[in-house]
């Protein structure tokens, strides 16, 4: 099952950022596939941990690109990054404490993060770049 689907309007026009966005989506999907049906807590934790690491480094790169291009609302954008990371960490801790990861809810959440973040914040950066 594909958790998140890449959409053409995710593209912001900076090769390395677009590349990582696609990579991230692929990673999330493939990790999710590898989870399979039999999900021990440990495997879910590993899955989430990997996503956290990748998103963290992706945000680091994106913030660098924005800083380089003097993005005027970087602070706001970064705050959204931090919010996403915090929510992911909340989810991880909840899972570690025994909450069962509900695929549907998690997929919806991820989709919301991605589409929500891409469509509002990244799109705004895209407009900044093309201005």
């Amino acid at each position, binding site marked *: 099952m594909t958790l998140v689907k890449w959409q053409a309007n995710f593209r912001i026009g900076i*090769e*390395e950022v*677009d*590349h*990582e966005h696609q990579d991230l989506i692929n990673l999330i999907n493939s*990790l999710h596939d590898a989870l399979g049906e039999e999900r021990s807590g*440990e495997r879910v*934790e*590993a*899955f*989430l*941990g*990997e996503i*956290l*690491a*990748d998103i*963290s*480094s*992706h*945000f*680091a*790169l994106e*913030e*660098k690109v924005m800083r380089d291009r003097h993005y005027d609302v970087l602070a706001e954008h970064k705050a959204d990054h*931090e919010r996403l*990371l*915090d929510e992911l*960490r*909340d989810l*991880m*801790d909840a899972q*570690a404490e025994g909450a069962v990861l509900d695929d549907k809810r998690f997929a919806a959440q991820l989709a919301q993060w991605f589409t929500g973040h891409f469509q509002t914040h990244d799109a705004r950066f895209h407009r900044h770049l093309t201005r």
Partner: protein
Amino acid sequence: MDALKRGLRAVFLRIEAALEAVFGARHNPLTQLGTLGWFLFWIVTVSGIYVYIFFDTGVTQAWESLDRLSREQWYLGGLMRSLHRYASDALVLVVLVHALREFAMDRMRGNRWFPWVTGIPLLWFLYACGITGYWLVWDQLAQYVAVATTEWLDSIGIFAEPIARNFLDSERLSGRFFTLIIYMHIALPLLMLLAMWIHIQRHAHARVNPPRTLAVGTLGALVALSFAWPAMSQAPADLDRAPFSLGLDWFYLAVYPLLERMHGSTLWLLLIGGSVLLTLLPWLPPLKKAPVAKVDLANCNGCRRCFADCPFGAITMIGRTDGLAYEQEASVDPDMCMSCGICVGACPTATPFRRVGHLSAGIELPDRSMSGLREEVAAAAARLSGDARVIVFGCSHDADSDRLADASTAVVRLPCVGMLPPPFIDLVVMRHQADGVLLSGCAGHDCFERLGDQWTEQRIANERDPNLRARVPRDRVAVAWNNPIRHGALRETLTQFRAHLRGLAAAGGAKPAPAASPAAWRARLRELPVAARYTGQGLVYALVVGFVGFFATQPAYTYLAEDHALLKLSFSHAGQPLKPCRRYTHEELTNTKFSERSATSCERGRWPVYVELDLNGEPIYRATHDPAGLWNDGPSAVYARFEVPAGRHRLDARLRDNGADQGFTFTASRMVELQPGTNFVVDFRATDGGFAFGLPAQDTARQEEAP
């Protein structure tokens, strides 16, 4: 070498601990010596420019212009002049202690050789600036500096004619040489500034400004010294007299008295040899180098955080080499990396939550892998018991954090606390591997790896990426920056932290109220009362400026014994040609091309000049002086100085310049009466008939022909 370093380090650490109690860690003067040096340099520059406005650059007017400035404009001009002197002296003090401290702390070996080695030319610049500065006052000290320095330079033997002859007596005083010194006193500080800039090139975020309170205190103390003990000129220079006693500035001129005990070239050899030895010090013995940081491209997307955090500029961002769509990747210069691991702490992929495959950060220390660290932390956590379990992350230079280990305290050591990626703290606290995390490092603002403590604090306070996630309660994350000898303070911090953690548990595990500030928790260690601290600071400033003020002129140096006079034998005279010139014969001329004809044939080369001088019949000088010049056709130069008792003396001078085995070309004898302190020159001018004794003005010498 190691024992010496350890001994010195123990002394420094004890003094620093005392100063920290008085000034606080951030304003500890001994950890701010570099920035204080820069600050003093700027004081010297500004005050120097001001004094220069009123300075008359003529050699005969210089003294008067400065004396007038000090007297008539004591409130500003005099102040500036005093600041110029005392800040320069303090600069010497600060620079020497700075070098000694970097040596004692072993911060100059391995890849840290660069600031050390570039600091040594700075010492030479500093002294050259000071020495030329004292020259400009043109008082008795300046006269001494001029004569001693030029004599010392002459001992190298690179000048055709002794440059000390520029300052032989009032008749021969060279205003042009004086002007040259003025230019040098302006040019050398500029070059020194360039060298200072090079000195700090390998330090990212180099600190060049001291904390404001320290700057204000230093300036205030120097101003107080300047008013209490204004820098004044000594008596005006008089080249026909030699000063008996001088107020020597021992910060700059301490080696000068040695010139009376050893030959100038020996002193040069000592100083140059010493400098070479100092230059080699970083490799005596060479540092056993830990493996440097290594970039793992599979985990590097070129986000630049390691580059931003490296304290030593060892990381550069280069174009991507593996064909991935990223623009850049980090690259480590193995010749600049100190293996501190601060870059690893900055890497966003260094998170222990990763479980798929092998945990590897985008940049890693081969000796201390992130996967190894994660295992060590997990194992340490598993051993902990009790109601307030603490994991201490200590650095390799902290106050013995190892000794804290017990049933409820685990200690994990890293090269530098800055190496710890914040997600590790997140994991330990949020997954209850321990109830609290204590980060223990070097004394505040004196991190061995320069910036580890600052970056750590900023990452915790959400001021620097990668930051510790806001959801991690800061009252479970403590920091302790301690002077390495203050293990007691570290232990006290742990005790208080544990009590605090118990308090949190007693609060019923209810969600703690969000902290007012995201900063890390710190213990309240016992401090001196404010009054005692200010008194202590005042005392320290008074001691330092007292030291500076005293040795700026004291103890006096006796140049010439009270009842003595100086006798100088100095002249420049060309020996006779080896062969006399002869006219070409007519035959020779006709055989020479018209364009190459000349009247006489002169072979180059002259005879050496042999000189004898007897004092009251006793030989005091016998020497042969070779002609100067590559072709041995220049004049032979003589310069010798004798200290003789004042009184009536018979002088016999003889000179031979024709290569004969015996006999003399010129001889002269005089009875002279030398007053104490007279500078009496025996000169020789072949055109004026031979030897000349003293100046016409030295009539008091009551010369007469000897029988």
